[in-house]
């Protein structure tokens, strides 16, 4: 590549009205690029933020005018996402990951180094407006933490020395490309049926279109494939519902939001096997009767954009995308990339569709389900990256082959992303049915206190359960496995971090999701401060039911870090509690001391007060 992929935008920061001074000279061009289409608001905001470092008042006014929206309505979408800001975030914007594993790998020290070198605190921009420092939720690099995103480019395994070099380069005005070499590693440490390169380009698609769409769905059904995004819904059933739903147009969506902390397998697929993913999406298009696929890609993975677009173009050139694919009259299908703006909840499929429509990523009420009323109210099949790859392999090698892998209820293989306290963090493609201990042996984990299976929304299990199987029928996982050794303070390093994550990432609609998470945090802090009593534990357990009233999976599982650690590490909690059943935090004697003195009274408190 002769031209640099990551140049530093000329954020002139002049007169945008945010209190800063950028010029917004390109806003008309950006609006025109998206045909002044309100539905593409996300793209417009992304381009403005990236080119200007903020979406200031003037830009908001212009967007509002063109789309006949109120200004507050533009802010309504804008303010939902991490990576958009009405305030200037600097010519270089550093987003340092604050996931639990990043903390375990020394994030605090790196944060300090950045603050010292740059000369401002996290959450702010330095004096000359050159560099902004911000924190962000897991960026999908747990196997190479601490890591940060600077103007779309990812820097991994940060050290103080690297930070010094990076900051020096930024102060010097260097292109991000030249700051230091980046080294996003794929770390594929075990290949299985999906990652093994034995499917030639076009094989799977040709096989699929030699059959009827119904036959394709039937083949997927025979494979017993279930969704790999976490919920495990049977893929064939989803496609059948979608195919049978009436609509002007059907859509295929690939969910590449990969926000569950500790998951990074979709990133590796997207960098290493994008052709397989696009083949799977194309097959889905054929099966449900759709001519448009959309890859919803988290903003954190913006660094892949050029490569993915190149792959898409190659596929078009080979007639594996576009019109009359592989010569099949009437089978048209193409794929575009839709970026998110930084919001974990957008991984929830209906929130993802809202976001893709240019709105706040708030999950929808169901029914109706996306297969009936999805993107633009049309029937839409949303599947995970890995699900599509599995489909492509199933098409190529047959349902029977696929069924021979894994267990009876969980057929096939699973990519797990392993991180935390182990020697070999990375991607392992295992067959379903492996035990947690099998995985620990593979990754070289010793002295293990706990394993977090399925990310914060999953479960934290203790050694006595390490013989449990990874399978839908036992321990289901979307792919995140975090190993926690005995040196860690489980409550402080893990539970509290996860609660902060949910508090930050809730869309804020449902009362229990928005407010109870904060209450859980208060309780854990109380216990960590040595002030907890048994009643606190009982209350936290009793609140679980209230959390199940939430609308979507985020809120329904946001109490899991607490509940599963209480269940599996009760002793740890007990050791931090006060002995008494109930300890009042209110000191009556102290509270009335002054007034009693003034009145010359000796209070009769009737108890053991002094």
């Amino acid at each position, binding site marked *: 590549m002769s031209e640099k992929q990551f140049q530093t935008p000329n954020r002139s920061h002049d007169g945008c009205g945010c209190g800063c001074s950028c010029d917004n000279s390109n806003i008309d061009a950006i609006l025109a690029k998206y045909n002044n289409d309100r539905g593409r608001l996300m793209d417009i905001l992304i381009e403005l933020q990236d080119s200007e470092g903020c979406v200031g008042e003037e830009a908001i006014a212009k967007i509002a005018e063109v789309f006949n929206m109120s200004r507050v309505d533009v802010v309504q979408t804008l303010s939902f996402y991490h990576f958009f800001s009405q305030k200037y975030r600097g010519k270089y914007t550093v987003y340092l990951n604050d996931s639990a594993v990043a903390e375990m790998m020394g994030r605090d020290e790196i944060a300090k180094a950045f603050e010292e070198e740059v000369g401002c605190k996290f959450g702010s921009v330095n004096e000359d407006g050159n560099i902004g420092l911000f924190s962000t939720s897991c960026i999908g690099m747990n196997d190479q933490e601490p890591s940060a995103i600077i103007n779309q480019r990812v820097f991994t395994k940060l050290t103080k020395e690297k930070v010094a070099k990076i900051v020096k380069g930024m102060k010097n005005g260097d292109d991000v490309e030249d700051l230091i070499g980046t080294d996003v590693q794929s770390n594929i440490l075990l290949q299985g049926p999906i990652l093994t390169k034995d499917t030639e380009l076009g094989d799977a698609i040709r096989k699929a279109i030699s059959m009827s769409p119904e036959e394709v769905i039937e083949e997927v059904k025979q494979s017993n494939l279930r969704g790999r995004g976490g919920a495990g819904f049977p893929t064939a059933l989803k496609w059948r519902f979608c195919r049978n739903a009436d609509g002007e147009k059907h859509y295929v969506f690939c969910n590449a939001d990969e926000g569950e902390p500790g998951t990074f397998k979709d990133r590796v697929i997207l960098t290493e096997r994008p052709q397989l993913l696009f083949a799977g999406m194309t097959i889905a298009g054929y099966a449900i009767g759709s001519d448009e696929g959309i890859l919803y890609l988290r903003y954190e993975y913006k660094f892949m954009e050029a490569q993915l677009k190149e792959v898409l173009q190659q596929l078009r050139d080979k007639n594996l995308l576009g019109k009359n694919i592989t010569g099949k009259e009437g089978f048209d299908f193409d794929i575009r990339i839709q970026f998110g703006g930084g919001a974990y909840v957008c991984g929830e499929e209906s929130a993802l569709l809202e976001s893709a429509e240019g709105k706040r990523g708030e999950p929808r009420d169901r029914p109706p389900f996306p297969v009936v009323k999805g993107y633009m109210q049309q029937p839409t099949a949303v599947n995970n990256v890995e699900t599509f790859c599995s489909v492509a392999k199933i098409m190529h090698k047959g349902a029977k082959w696929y069924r021979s892998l894994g267990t009876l209820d969980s057929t096939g293989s699973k990519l797990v992303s392993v991180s935390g306290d182990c020697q070999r963090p990375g991607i392992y493609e295992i067959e379903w049915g492996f035990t947690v201990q099998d995985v620990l042996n593979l990754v070289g984990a010793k002295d293990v206190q706990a394993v977090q299976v399925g990310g914060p929304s999953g479960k934290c299990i203790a050694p006595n359960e390490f013989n449990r199987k990874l399978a839908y029928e036992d321990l289901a996982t979307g792919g995140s496995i975090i190993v926690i050794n005995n040196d860690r303070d489980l409550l402080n390093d893990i539970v509290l971090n996860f609660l902060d994550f949910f508090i930050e990432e809730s869309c804020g609609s449902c009362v229990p999701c928005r407010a109870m998470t904060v209450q859980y945090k208060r309780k854990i802090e109380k216990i960590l401060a040595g002030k907890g009593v048994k009643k606190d534990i009982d209350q936290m357990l009793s*609140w679980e039911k*209230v959390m199940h009233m939430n609308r979507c999976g985020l809120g329904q599982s946001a109490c899991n870090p607490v509940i599963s650690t209480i269940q599996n590490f009760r002793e740890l909690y007990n050791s931090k509690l006060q002995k008494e059943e109930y300890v009042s935090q209110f000191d009556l004697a102290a509270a009335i001391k002054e007034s009693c003195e003034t009145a010359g009274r000796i209070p009769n408190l009737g108890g053991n007060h002094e």
Partner: protein
Amino acid sequence: MSKVLITIDGKGFLADSEKTVLEVARENHIYIPTLCNLEGIKPQGSCRICTCMIDGRMMTACTTPVNNGMVVVTKTDELDKLRSKIVELLFAEGNHFCPACERSGNCELQALAYLYKIMVPEFDYIFPNRDVDATHPKLILDHNRCILCKRCIRRKKEAENPTWFVFENRGNHVKINFDHELTADMDDEMAQKAMDTCPVGAIIRKEKGYDVPIGRRKYDLHPIGSDIEGKE
């Protein structure tokens, strides 16, 4: 419109297939508590208080369309307990000093707290630092009392083009806002409508207030839901 047969709390009802569980329950004088719901505006299950057991699962009555053969349980001790926890959470999350509030006695949140006989929430009061925006000529927006139900946002918007009320931020930083410029010419009737849409005292009309004396306010006389249950 086709008809379906559904069972609510053990009794069978014939219902329009297009209606929600909440609507059908109401028509049949069964009160399911709500906060974010308001007749005439599109439901969005966000307060979660109307959660019922629907075919054995916890689902919000306001958003779930009826189905033939559906079995709904609207009231159990456990459901009431869970609902009361949501009411408590709302008190703990905001700043509600009822005696000084214009909506006291006419406030759905307060009325639900009475219904569930809530004395002291088991939750920590958060005492958040929230603003009061009194810069608009007709309305005061008191974020301390806002329960983020979005009724003002979802209210049918004939006059509101483009959108007046919106949600901002996310997580526990969400708040409502409205476009001061577009609403600058709002007349008294519209201001009253905006206030009436709010279940609590977060949207308050300027220049007029406390006009119903204590003792004659809406919920002084009848507990919330009694109009639906029809037992005055």
